[in-house]
C-alpha cells in the first residue's frame, strides 16, 4: 500500500513541478553570459535551485482542481469546482458515499488512489455496506445497498493522514516564505502609512497603532489574502465581527471601537484557513486543539534527529559533465567509468590543495580549456574528445593549480568542496588566533 502511496506522490508532484530542471551547464552559461568568458571572473557562478509554494488559498486549491476520472466509471470531474456534481454522481449512479469528504485534504489524490485500488477487488472489500429503504431519487424500495468509503478502513485512514501531512507541509513552506520575505509592501488598512518590510512588521503596526490584533504572525498563513479580505469588508462598510452593515465610514469605526469589534470573530469559519492550527490534524479545529493539554515532554521533543530532508542536499555535479550524484564516492565511481579513470579519491593531497584542484578544473572546464595542457577549444565536446584522446583526465601538475586565486570557489554552491576528505590532521595551517 505504501508503494501505491509513493507512486501517488510521484503523480501528485507532477502537477506541482511546473519548471523542470534543465541541464546544469545550460543554465549557468546563460547566467554567466555577462562575464564574456574573460579570465577575470568577478561574479561566482552557481548551480540553479528550485522552489515553489502556493501564493494564496486559491492557488492551494487550484492545484487540486484537475479533471479526474470518477472512481467507478469514465466520467471526468474537476475535483474542486465540480465537487458537488461529482459527489452527487457518485451517490445516484454508483450508490457510493465518501465519508467525511470535506476533511479529505486532497480529493484529487484520494480519488486517484482509490480508483487504482478498486481495480483489485470488489467494493465490499473496501467500503462499509449499508442498507436503506429508498433509491437515490427518494422512491421507496426495500433493502437498497449503499457503500461508504470511510476511514474505518486502516488503509483509508493512513491515506487521509498522509494527504493531510502533505498539505500541512505545503502550508508550512508558504509560511516560511512569508516569515522570511522582506519585500512585502501594502497600504495600511486604517491609516495612510505604507507598510513595508516583513508581514510580521505590518501586523505589528496594525496592533500597535490601530489596536487591531490578528494574532502572532507565526500562527498565520496567506497573510496577504487575509488582509485583503479584511480590507474588502471594511470598504463595504461591514463590521468585521458582527457583520452589521453601516452607511458611513465614521459610524463603522465608532461601532468597532466602542464594541471592541476590531478583531476576527472566532465563530467565522471562513477565516479558519488563515490560521495554521486548523491544518494540524484532520477534522480538528482550533477549539479542540486549544483544549488539548500539551502533555509531558518526552525525549523526542528535544531531539534534533527527526528533522530529515533528503532532497535538501544539493547534488554534487561532476567536474567534467552534467552528471549529478549525492555523494563524493558515487561521483568518483562515475568519473572513473566515464572519464577514463579520473577520481578525487586517494590523491594524497592536503585539503587545501584538493580545494584548489577542484576550483582549477572547474574553471578550466568552464572556459573549455584542458586542465593539463591548457589547450583551448571552442566547444565542450571537442574538449571532451581531447581529454579522452590525450589521456588528460588526470591530476595536472601541482604548480598549475597551487595558486592563491583557487582558494576561492569557482561555483558558489559547489557541494563537492564540502565533501572533500581532510586526512592530514596536524598540517601547518597559517592561522593566527585573535
Amino acid at each position, binding site marked *: 500500500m505504501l508503494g501505491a502511496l509513493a507512486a501517488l506522490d510521484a503523480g501528485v508532484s507532477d502537477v506541482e513541478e511546473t519548471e523542470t530542471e534543465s541541464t546544469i551547464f545550460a543554465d549557468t552559461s546563460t547566467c554567466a553570459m555577462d562575464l564574456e568568458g574573460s579570465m577575470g571572473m568577478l561574479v561566482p557562478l552557481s548551480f540553479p535551485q528550485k522552489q515553489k509554494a502556493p501564493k494564496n488559498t486559491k492557488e492551494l486549491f487550484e492545484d487540486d482542481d484537475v479533471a479526474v476520472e470518477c472512481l467507478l466509471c469514465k466520467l471526468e470531474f474537476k475535483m474542486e469546482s465540480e465537487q458537488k456534481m461529482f459527489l452527487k454522481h457518485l451517490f445516484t449512479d454508483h450508490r457510493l458515499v465518501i465519508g467525511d469528504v470535506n476533511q479529505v485534504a486532497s480529493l484529487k489524490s484520494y480519488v486517484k488512489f482509490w480508483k487504482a485500488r478498486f481495480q483489485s477487488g470488489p467494493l465490499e472489500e473496501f467500503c462499509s455496506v449499508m442498507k436503506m429503504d429508498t433509491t437515490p431519487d427518494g422512491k421507496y424500495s426495500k433493502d437498497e445497498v449503499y457503500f461508504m468509503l470511510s476511514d474505518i478502513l486502516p488503509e483509508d485512514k493512513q491515506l487521509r493522514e498522509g494527504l493531510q501531512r502533505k498539505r*500541512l507541509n505545503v502550508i*508550512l513552506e508558504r*509560511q516560511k516564505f512569508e516569515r522570511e520575505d522582506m519585500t512585502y509592501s501594502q497600504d495600511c488598512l*486604517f*491609516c495612510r502609512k505604507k507598510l513595508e518590510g516583513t508581514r*510580521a512588521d505590518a*501586523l*505589528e503596526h496594525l496592533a*500597535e497603532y490601530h*489596536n*487591531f*490584533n*490578528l*494574532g*502572532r504572525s*507565526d*500562527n498565520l498563513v496567506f497573510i496577504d489574502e487575509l488582509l485583503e479580505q479584511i480590507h474588502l469588508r*471594511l470598504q463595504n462598510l461591514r463590521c468585521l465581527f458582527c457583520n452589521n452593515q453601516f452607511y458611513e*465610514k465614521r459610524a463603522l*469605526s*465608532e461601532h*468597532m471601537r*466602542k464594541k*471592541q469589534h*476590531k*478583531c*476576527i470573530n*472566532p465563530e467565522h469559519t471562513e477565516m479558519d484557513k488563515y490560521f*495554521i492550527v486548523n491544518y*494540524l490534524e484532520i477534522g480538528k479545529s*482550533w477549539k479542540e*486543539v*486549544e483544549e*488539548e493539554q500539551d502533555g509531558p*515532554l*518526552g525525549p523526542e521533543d*528535544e*531531539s*534534533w*534527529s*527527526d*528533522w530529515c*530532508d533528503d532532497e*535538501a*542536499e*544539493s547534488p554534487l555535479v561532476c567536474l567534467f559533465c552534467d552528471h549529478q550524484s549525492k555523494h563524493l564516492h558515487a561521483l568518483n565511481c562515475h568519473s572513473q567509468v566515464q572519464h577514463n579513470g579520473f577520481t578525487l579519491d586517494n590523491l594524497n593531497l592536503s*585539503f587545501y590543495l584538493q580545494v584548489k584542484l577542484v576550483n582549477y578544473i572547474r574553471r578550466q572546464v568552464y572556459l573549455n580549456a584542458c586542465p593539463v595542457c591548457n589547450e583551448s577549444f571552442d566547444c565542450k565536446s571537442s574538449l571532451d574528445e581531447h581529454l579522452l584522446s590525450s589521456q588528460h583526465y588526470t591530476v595536472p601538475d601541482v604548480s598549475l593549480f597551487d595558486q*592563491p586565486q583557487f*582558494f*576561492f*570557489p569557482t561555483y558558489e554552491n*559547489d557541494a563537492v568542496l*564540502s*565533501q572533500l576528505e*581532510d586526512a592530514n590532521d596536524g598540517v601547518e*595551517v597559517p*592561522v*593566527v*588566533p*585573535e
Partner: protein
Amino acid sequence: MADNAAAGARGGFRGGFGGRGRGGRPRGRGRGRGRGRGKEAEKEWVPVTKLGRLVRDGKIRSLEEIYLFSLPIKEYEIIDFFIGSQLKDEVLKIMPVQKQTRAGQRTRFKAFVAIGDSNGHIGLGVKCSKEVATAIRGAIILAKLSVVPVRRGYWGNKIGKPHTVPCKVTGKCGSVLVRLIPAPRGTGIVSAPVPKKLLNMAGIEDCYTSARGSTGTLGNFAKATYTAIGKTYAYLTPDLWKEMPLATAPYHEYADYLAKNHRVVGTGLQ
C-alpha cells in the same frame, strides 16, 4: 501591554480609522501582538538564580566573564541583558511531529531555531508545541540559554578583524561529522546551506567545511556544526600557553553581596 499604553495616551490623533480604543483581549484569535523584536513591554525581570541577581545588579561586566568561569546560565534574561539587542534569531525549520499519547496520535509543531549576533555568539534551540508561535518562542529561549562564544582568527596576517576559525575543529552529532577548516579572507563560507547559516550568525566570514555521515539529517547536521563552532574556544592554541594569574569567581567575590541581599522567599505558611 500596548493596550494599557493606548488607554493612557488616548489624546493624540492617530489617523482615520478607530482611535486607540481600550482593546480587550479577544478570545481565540488575536492572542497578543505579532512577534515584536524587543518592542513588547518588558516585564520587570526578577532573577531566581545567584548569577541572575549578580547580572541584574550590574556586578558582572560582560558575558565573557561568565564564560571564563564556565558558570551555567539558567536564565535567558542574562543573555538578553548583555547582548539581547544584537541577537538575531532565525527559524531553521517548523515541522509537524507525531507523538503517541494515551488519547492516540497527537500532531505538534516542532520549531528549530538558531540565534546569533554575527559577532562571536551562537545558540541553538528546539521546542515542540501545538501552536507555531509558542514553539518558536520556546525555542528562542532555549537557543539563548545555549549561546556559546566563538573564537575567530586571522589567516596569515593580523590585519583588520578576525574572520575565520582559529584552527581545524570537528563536531559530531548522531552520525554527522562536521569539520571546520580555516580559509583565507574573501573565500566566504563554503558549505551546505544549513551550516552556512549558522556560521554566518556566529560571525565567521570565511571557512571551508568537510561533512561526513548522513547529512540528510539536517537537525544533526546543524547540531554538529554548532558543536564544532563551540570547540573553537576549547582548543588550546600555542598563544594561550602562557600562564595567567588565577582570577576569583564571581560567586566568591560577591559572596557578601549575595548574602546581604538574599531574601528568604516565604512558603506561604501563615
